[in-house]
C-alpha cells in the first residue's frame, strides 16, 4: 500500500522532470508562431530560420569549436593530473584535489567577473582563447574525477610488471594503463564538452559578439523575444545532449566490461 503510493508519487515526479522538456520540442515543428497547443500544422520553418539567420548557425559552430577545444585541453591537462593524483598521498594530495575540484563549487558568477577583470587588460576578453581557457577551467574537474574513477579499477601491480619487463614509466603509462582507462578518459572529455556546451554565464560576461555560443544566443533570444526559433535551438541542444548521454552510457558499459574482464 505504502509502496503503491510511493510509485504514484515517483511517476508524477518523473513526469515533472521529463514533461517540460518533451512538451516544448513539438512546438519547434509548428507551422504557426504561437507558443501553445494545438499546433496549427507542421513545418520546418523554424529550423529554416535557424539555419538561415546571421546569428544561430555561427553560434552553433562557436559552441562546437569552443566545446571541442576546451574539452581537448581539459583532457590533455586532466588525464596526467588524475594519474598523478592517483599516486599522490597525504596533505599534498588533499590540497591539489581541493584546487582541482574548486571550479565545481565556486559559483560561476564569481569566476565570470574575476575572469572579466583579469582577461580584460590582457586582451583575452572577446577572444576565442579567453573563452576556451575559461571553459577548460570549468571542465577539468570532470575529467580528473572521471579518470580517477576509471583508475580505481586499474591494478597498479601491472605498472610494476611493465617496468620489470623493461618499459619506462612513460611507455608503461601509454602501453599498459591508458588503454585500460581509455573509456574513462573519453567519458571525461565528453563531460568537459558538455560543461562547455551548457555554460551561459561566463559566455555572457567575457564573450564578444564574434564568440557568441548557442546558450549565450539562447539567453539573448529569451531576453529579447521568445520565438519558436529559440525552441528549435533548444531542440537541437536536447538532441546533442541525448547523443552525449548515450555515448557516455556506452563508454561506461565498456569501461565496466573491461575492468571486469
Amino acid at each position, binding site marked *: 500500500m505504502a509502496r503503491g503510493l510511493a510509485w504514484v508519487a515517483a511517476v508524477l515526479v518523473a513526469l515533472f522532470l521529463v514533461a517540460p522538456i518533451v512538451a516544448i520540442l513539438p512546438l519547434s515543428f509548428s507551422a504557426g508562431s504561437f507558443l501553445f497547443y494545438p499546433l496549427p500544422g507542421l513545418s520546418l520553418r523554424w529550423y529554416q530560420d535557424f539555419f538561415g539567420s546571421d546569428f544561430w548557425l555561427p553560434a552553433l559552430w562557436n559552441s562546437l569549436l569552443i566545446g571541442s577545444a576546451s574539452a*581537448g585541453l581539459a583532457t590533455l591537462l586532466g588525464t596526467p593530473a588524475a594519474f598523478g593524483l592517483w599516486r599522490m598521498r597525504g596533505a599534498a594530495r588533499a590540497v591539489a584535489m581541493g584546487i582541482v575540484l574548486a571550479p565545481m563549487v565556486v559559483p560561476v558568477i564569481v569566476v565570470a567577473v574575476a575572469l*572579466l577583470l583579469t582577461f580584460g587588460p590582457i586582451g583575452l576578453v572577446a577572444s576565442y582563447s579567453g573563452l576556451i581557457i575559461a571553459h577548460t577551467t570549468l571542465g577539468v574537474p570532470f575529467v580528473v574525477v572521471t579518470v580517477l574513477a576509471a583508475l580505481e579499477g586499474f591494478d597498479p601491480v601491472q605498472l610494476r610488471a611493465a617496468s620489470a619487463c623493461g618499459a619506462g614509466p612513460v611507455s608503461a603509462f601509454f602501453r599498459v594503463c591508458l588503454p585500460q582507462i581509455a573509456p574513462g578518459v573519453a567519458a571525461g572529455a565528453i563531460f568537459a564538452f558538455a560543461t562547455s556546451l551548457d555554460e551561459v554565464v561566463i559566455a555572457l560576461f567575457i564573450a*564578444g559578439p*564574434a564568440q557568441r555560443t548557442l546558450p549565450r544566443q539562447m539567453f539573448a533570444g529569451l531576453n529579447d523575444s521568445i520565438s519558436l526559433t529559440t525552441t528549435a535551438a533548444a531542440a537541437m541542444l536536447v538532441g546533442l545532449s541525448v547523443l552525449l548521454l548515450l555515448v557516455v552510457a556506452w563508454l561506461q558499459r565498456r569501461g565496466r566490461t573491461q575492468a571486469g574482464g
Partner: protein
Amino acid sequence: MHRRTVLTGALAASALPTIARAQGRDLTVVSWGGAYQDAQREVYFRPFQQQTNTRLLEETWDGGIGVLRSRIASGANTWDVVQVESEELLIGADEGLFERMDWAAIGGRDAYIPEAVNDYGVGAILYSFIIAYDRARTPQGPTNWADFFDSARFPGKRGMRKGPKTTLEMALMADGVQPAQVYQVLGTAAGVDRAFRKLDSIKADIAWFERGSQPPQWLAAGEVAMTVAYNGRISAANQTDNRNFAIVWTNNIFTLDSWVIMKGSPNRAKALEFLKFVGQPAVQATLPPKIPYGVTAKGVNERLPPDVLANLPTAPQNIASALHLSDRFWLDNLDRLTQRFNTWVSR
C-alpha cells in the same frame, strides 16, 4: 614518441586560439535590439556591409552609463559604435568614455539638424516614450498618465522601464505636475519623494522592462494591460504583426539617441565610415517607413510620404503636449537617483 605527440598536440591546441585572436576584431555596432535593430539591420547594417565590403558585428544592449564606464575602466571594451541616450552622451563625453566625433569625416555639422550635433556624438533617431495598449483587449484605454497610474479604473499590470529616467517624470505628471514644471519639482528632495510615493501606489502592478522589444511583446501576449513604450516599436508591431495597439501621445516624453565611438576603439576609421554611410539623407529616409522614428540628417523629411510623417514623434499634433527630456537634469542626477531607484525596486 608518445611524449612528442602529446607535446605537439598541446602546442597545436594552444596555438589554435592564438591564430583565431590574431585576426583582430571586426567593427562592432551596438543598438537596442528587437524591431528597431531589425529595421536598422535591413536599411543600415546589411547595405553598409555590402557596399563597403566591411564585416560588421552586431550587439544589443539595454542602456546604462555604468555599462560603458565599466567597459572602459576594466579594459575589456569590445564595442566600437554604440547608440546611446542623450544624458549618456553628456556623461560619457564628460568622463572621457568616447572618442571625439570627426565631423569632417561624416559629412560636416551642417548636414545634420542642430539637435543632433555634439562634439562627441551624432544624433541617430528622435523618439518618444508613450503609453500603449491593445485595443483588441482594452477598447476603452487610458488617455493620460493619471489614467496609467489609476489601477482602480484601469486594472491589470503595466509595463514601465526599469530605471529612474522617464519613470519619475511620468509619476509626477500622473500626480498633476504640468510638463513645464516637472524638472523644477524633480530638482527638489520633496519632489523626488513625491514621485516615488506615486510609484509606490502601483508598485505591485508594475512589470519592469529592460529592453525596448519587451513592451510590444508583453502587450501582444496580454502580460500587461498597458505599457510605457517607444513609439516606433508599437507602430512597427501594428505594421508587421497586424496588431491593433493604440498610442497615447498625451504628455509623451520626447528625446533623441546618438551614435558614439568608444574611447580607444581600434576600428575608429571604419566606425566613421559607418557613421558617414548612415548619415546620408537617402539612406536615412529608408528607416522611418520601417519604424516611425525621426531621423537626423537635413532634408530627409521632404523625402517621406505624409502618412509616415504623421506617425513620427515630431509631427505637430504629437509633439504639442510633449515633455522634452532634460539631459541636463539627468547629467547631474542620474547616479544618485539610479541608486535610489535600484534600492527601491529590488526591495
